[in-house]
């Protein structure tokens, strides 16, 4: 079975500090995409960052970056200079060689002012 695991149900970080959210996955596919999605309280789910498995270079989007370790099947999200607006549920997901995304159980991130 292809799975995505987020082992941290909740995380908190001081405003302006850096936090890393963990994600591991299991698949036998060689070609797939990995994603981090953000769901702010009572708001729509939006894409944070996307990584193509065949690319060795880690994806970055402004303050958001990933550490993609293909051999270890690990895909962590680093948020630098945390802001109050970063408070949300974060979901790791993967499309394991097809169009359907498999999601992890989520990490609730709290920003401490």
């Amino acid at each position, binding site marked *: 079975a292809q799975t995505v695991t*987020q082992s941290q149900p909740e995380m908190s970080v001081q405003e302006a500090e850096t936090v890393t959210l963990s994600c591991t996955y299991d698949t036998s596919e060689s070609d797939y995409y990995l*994603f981090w999605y953000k769901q702010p309280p009572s708001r729509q*789910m939006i894409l944070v960052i*996307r990584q193509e498995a065949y690319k060795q270079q880690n994806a970055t989007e402004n303050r958001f970056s990933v550490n993609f370790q293909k051999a270890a099947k690990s895909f962590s999200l680093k948020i630098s200079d945390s802001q109050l607006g970063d408070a949300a549920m974060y979901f790791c997901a993967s499309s394991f060689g097809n*169009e*359907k*995304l498999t999601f*992890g*159980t*989520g990490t609730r991130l709290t920003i401490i002012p």
Partner: protein
Amino acid sequence: DVKVTQSSRYLVKRTGEKVFLECVQDMDHENMFWYRQDPGLGLRLIYFSYDVKMKEKGDIPEGYSVSREKKERFSLILESASTNQTSMYLCASSRTGSGSGANVLTFGAGSRLTVL
């Protein structure tokens, strides 16, 4: 601004009622999805459609059916609602192919269903 629109944000239904959740996208996406979101369980795929009138079961299709008569519209149907179907339902769409937008899901705002 591209959109996925879910017709109802909040619904309250009785056990045994037939429930329709509607979803419309304006991005000409081939793929549409219905996910169910529950605390501690993340998002679980109910059904997926990759073309008009085409559908595939996801991980938890029991108790649900879907309809896709037009490319832009994907409906989720609960034939006889039960209390264990109380949940947040998320519709999403994506385009097929390669490039920067491939496999990226665009989500609707969600429909929170309560079955009494």
